[in-house]
């Protein structure tokens, strides 16, 4: 019961009545009704469009089903075996893990560098901070379409610019050459998402007390020493939170890949999400698609739990938000 209430009958164990336990009586029924009323819309929508489809995905994953007729062809774990032994899917898992690691390795130093740069007292800093966020605000699809045009083999501006410094573009283009497709994708993803890292880090930097850098300065530390010994360590919680968001995003990556390469060439950029959408919508293999989605979910959940346990645990505030996932 909230502090609104005067101590109800039977609340004698609670000295103040503020934390009174809801025990019997009309008031509690009324409160239960209010709780139900207030949470009903959210619970209905969330249950119907999030929980139910996920449960159905688990169910579908146990059947061989082409999307029509009743769900009768129960195959147990066969779809999972099919997915886990599928070369394309295993490749997709590898690609997702590569993207998780590469995103952090590339965007962390880059984002940190730009954030430290923009944290200095330079002219037009506010404008710079807005500009760095522009790619992040654009829809992934729209950014993807622009990059697709820039990277057109033979006539895109990227190859033209390379040509002016005497470099030839690859014959099939950056996105059409299997060995180059993934690195190219990483470049585009970095362009799109480094702004988020920068802005989170800038926010974190505002929490670094002036007194600390001031003290270091008086002790004769150089700018770089201050950043390395004082500022960056204090950014720890922000960096860990950002890495978590980045990780989850990398595991779910779909839009950009679908637009840029469609998972190709020769499955060189397939992700778990493009795999399952492809199986589900193009081949109507709903059972396989559902099994793939469950695997994706289990991988995401496992990584989230491990991350929470071993990394985020140090930051109480983050632990609060993710407390339930332990």
């Amino acid at each position, binding site marked *: 019961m909230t502090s609104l209430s005067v101590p109800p009958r039977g609340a004698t164990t609670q000295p103040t009545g503020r934390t009174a336990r809801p025990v019997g009586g009309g008031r509690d029924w009324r409160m239960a009704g209010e709780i139900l009323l207030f949470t009903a819309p959210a619970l209905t929508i969330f249950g119907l469009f999030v929980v139910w489809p996920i449960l159905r995905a688990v169910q579908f994953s146990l059947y061989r089903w082409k999307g029509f007729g009743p769900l009768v062809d129960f195959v147990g774990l066969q779809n999972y075996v099919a997915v886990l032994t599928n070369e394309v899917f295993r490749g997709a898992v590898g690609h997702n893990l590569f993207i998780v690691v590469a995103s952090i390795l590339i965007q962390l130093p880059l984002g940190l560098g730009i954030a430290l740069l923009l944290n200095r007292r330079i002219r037009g800093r506010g404008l710079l901070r807005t500009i760095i966020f522009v790619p992040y605000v654009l829809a992934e699809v729209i950014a993807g379409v622009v990059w697709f045009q820039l990277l057109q083999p033979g006539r895109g501006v990227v190859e033209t610019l390379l040509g002016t410094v005497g470099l030839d573009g690859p014959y099939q283009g950056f996105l059409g050459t299997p060995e180059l497709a993934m690195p190219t994708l990483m470049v585009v993803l970095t362009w799109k998402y480094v702004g988020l890292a920068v802005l989170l880090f800038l926010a974190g930097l505002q929490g670094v007390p002036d007194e600390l850098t001031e003290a270091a300065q008086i002790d004769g530390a150089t700018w770089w020493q201050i950043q390395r010994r004082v500022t960056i360590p204090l950014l720890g919680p922000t960096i860990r939170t950002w890495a978590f*968001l980045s990780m989850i995003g990398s595991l779910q990556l779909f839009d950009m890949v679908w637009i840029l390469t469609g998972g190709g060439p020769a499955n060189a950029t397939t992700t778990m999400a493009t795999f399952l959408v492809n199986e589900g919508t193009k081949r109507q293999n709903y059972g396989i698609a559902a099994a793939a989605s469950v695997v994706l979910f289990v991988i995401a959940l496992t990584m989230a739990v491990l991350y929470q346990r071993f990394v985020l645990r140090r930051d109480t505030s983050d632990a609060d938000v993710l407390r339930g996932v332990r």
Partner: protein
Amino acid sequence: MSTPMSMRGSIHESSDRSSRSTGAALATPSTSTVTDQPTGQATGDRHTPGSGRRRAPAERNGRGEGGVLVYLAALVVVALTLGPVLYAVLGGFRTNAQLAADPAGLPDPWVLDNYRRVITGSTFWTYALNSVAIAVITTVVTVVAGLMAAYPLARYQFRWREPLFMVFVVGLLFPATVAIIPLFILVTRDLSLGNTWWGVALPQAAFALPMTIVILRPFLMAIPREMEEAAIMDGASRLQFFWRVLLPLSAPGAITVGVLAFVGSWNAYLLPLLLLRGEMKTLPLGVADFSSQYSSDTAGVFAFTTLAMIPALIFFLAMQKRIVNGLQGAVKG
């Protein structure tokens, strides 16, 4: 839930902390974008005599021999960030012949035809209308349902409070992709909402709810207990308190989650891709379609894409200040 006083205090403190961190994590993009407000203010406020001395070395660092390099680095960052976007904008002002002859050149002469074709054609506007409608429905449903649910989760004491909250928190981890196939079947077959605004908006709202509730709950928790007591003394019921006190005070938080829901919906691709066809498509779908249908008409693609970028950018720039003010406002108390 019956929690002893002391524990409750700590719960409040900790959620207060989490509010700040979530707030920081999610809202700061905008916070720091608009102005350098926080830093600026902090330094402005602290212009005590001593601070002049303190600032001097920092400024020398910024302007001294390192200064040129700093500006050069900033210039490179800006060029790399804006380059592709500006290239698309300018590309829309060129002809395909110009683009083919000199892909890296500037428009010469400037051609308005590509943009004119997109603006005078009906497809762009149809898609834009769908995008707006779906984003508005998503936002309204998310904010209303989220605020309502956050209220008892923040200010009522009951046994299932934390477990219920956890249901939504765990929801944060569900990628929409996982549920996409059953969602498609649910919406099109069971609910007959395929190819409708609501069919896309409701699932999008559902997936936006966890974040919304996680952000709003600390907002509502941070409103001082004394205000609630005062309202009760004046004879308000809990519902009246919600309407008259809590809603106005949580407006900044509601705006933040509203913007997040709107931008998320506006940029969404996968769900609309599966659910919408023909006249019902949204702008991202339109852009993708246009790009694959007229792949050789690069200038046309650039014009279409540029026009599709503008609303989100304008919306974001317009809302920035309100988000910042909101987050720096009432909640801190």
